[in-house]
């Protein structure tokens, strides 16, 4: 028989420990890679430079070096505007382990003029509940002395005073009216997808 174990009186009414948080830490060097490095060098000059695979193909901001639609590298650089349109957004009210933002904050998907993919960034200088889809916004940079090779050198975006764009679409949204869904009960098929390399297929 194991000896009977009893808690000392001083511990008997203490709440039981049910879990212990044991943070682990891992420090590492992150190499941005060629495509991101070129983009980040542009940021240090307060320029937003996207990349594309061909003169006609989609402009990626921030670029990751490849166009996933074409499966091709993106050697062509294109400077895009520092104004854009909010395609959607989220007002965040929830704190979590590791979060550094003051609550609430509004993160938005912003489609910069000349780019084909929205970036996620902060919206400020407007009450959070007045942010809306279609709102036109502009980048607000840090002071010149604080510019570094990071998208954080843009402090946030703010309304630029232009009227809303009522026709703003999220890139690829047209799929929702034909490709990524069923219209008239007709199932989508691979044949409906335009082949970006050959231009064949797709809807008229």
């Amino acid at each position, binding site marked *: 028989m194991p000896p009977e174990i009893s808690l000392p009186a001083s511990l008997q009414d203490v709440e039981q420990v049910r879990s212990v948080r044991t943070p682990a830490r891992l420090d590492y060097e992150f190499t941005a890679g060629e495509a991101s490095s070129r983009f980040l060098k542009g940021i240090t000059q307060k320029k937003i430079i996207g990349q594309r695979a061909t003169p006609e193909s989609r402009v990626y901001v921030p670029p990751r070096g490849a166009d*996933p639609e074409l499966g091709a590298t993106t050697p062509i650089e294109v400077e895009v505007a520092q104004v854009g349109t909010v395609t959607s957004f989220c007002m965040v009210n929830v704190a979590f382990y590791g979060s550094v933002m003051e609550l609430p904050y509004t*993160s938005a998907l912003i489609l910069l003029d000349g780019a084909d993919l929205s970036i996620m960034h902060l919206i400020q200088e407007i009450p959070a509940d007045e942010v809306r889809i279609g709102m036109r916004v502009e980048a607000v940079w840090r002071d010149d002395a604080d510019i570094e090779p990071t998208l954080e050198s843009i402090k946030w975006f703010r309304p630029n005073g232009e009227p809303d764009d009522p026709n703003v679409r999220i890139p690829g949204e047209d799929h929702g009216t034909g490709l990524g869904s069923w219209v008239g009960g007709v199932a989508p098929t691979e044949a409906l997808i335009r082949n970006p390399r050959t231009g064949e297929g797709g809807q008229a």
Partner: protein
Amino acid sequence: MTWSDIDAVVIGKAPDFFEGVMMPELFLADALGATGKPMFRVHTAGSVGGSTAIVASQLIQAGLHERVLTVAFEKQSESEAMWALSLPIPFTPPLHAGAGGYFAPHIRSYIRRSKAPDHVGMLVALKDRQNGIKNPYAHLHEHDISFDSIKESMMLWDPIRYAETCPSSDGACALVLGSEKVADDAMAEGRQPAWIQGTAMRSEPTLSAERDTVLPLGGALCAADVYKQAGITNPRKDVDAVEMYVPFSWFEPMWLENLGFAEPGEGWKMTEAGATAMDGDLPVNMSGGVLCTNPIGASGMLRFGEIAMQVRGTAGEHQVDGVRRGVGHAYGGGSQFFAMWVVGSEKP
């Protein structure tokens, strides 16, 4: 059936850094009866439970094995999913706020496109939480849930309320998949099997400019493929019940459209009209779904297993009468991984 009847084990869970245990399948081999047997791990983020079951079924379909045990799990009490899904990305503002922060803009886009009224998300949450009360294995049993309590719950990731969000659960799901002969033998002994009539997986790149995040093409093609295999030509008519992956309430109407049960922009009308309720013409998430129980890695397999229980007639209090054919669905990542199966009471 004993351990010796199992030929191989296929296991799935969400990424290892959730719990901080690298390749846990190696530690689990003994406990799963996998010692000395082929073991295989599947990785497809939140859809992994579905993909894992499909991989297991393919080992049988390929003629390699007679019976395969497939298992999926997550132990969120020992993990920090919100943190794990918000890891700072180098050279990028630290704005990511977990899955809710990622999916909230997609939901807002859906609401705008479909002109759905605000209460639809709350109706889904109410239905699923009420269904979950009937499921003894559900994590949440919210007997006092009401439309008003959902409406008054905190807006976490506007437009997603606290009560429209899945919980962080510990849980697991295990299925034994067998060959045609195994199922025939079960039939002969009077045990109703769930016949797999089709399986499909699709994926698409997260950061493609051509991608519709609200109605992803990969999800629709996955559905079209699995229906074709099962001989389903009119999903709304030919399918009796669905277990789909709805971690945030609004994904019910979104997936109803993506999976061909409703025209684009019309899915919310099915929810609002009660079509997806337990007594509707297309019951959805009779088990309470992900909104009641979210052990992430297991959540997809729970959908697959729950729909199998429906066609076997073994779902207990949340059984819907007369489910002859049902759909199990899982999605994962940034709405870019999809896994589905169709199971039926009749041999295909």
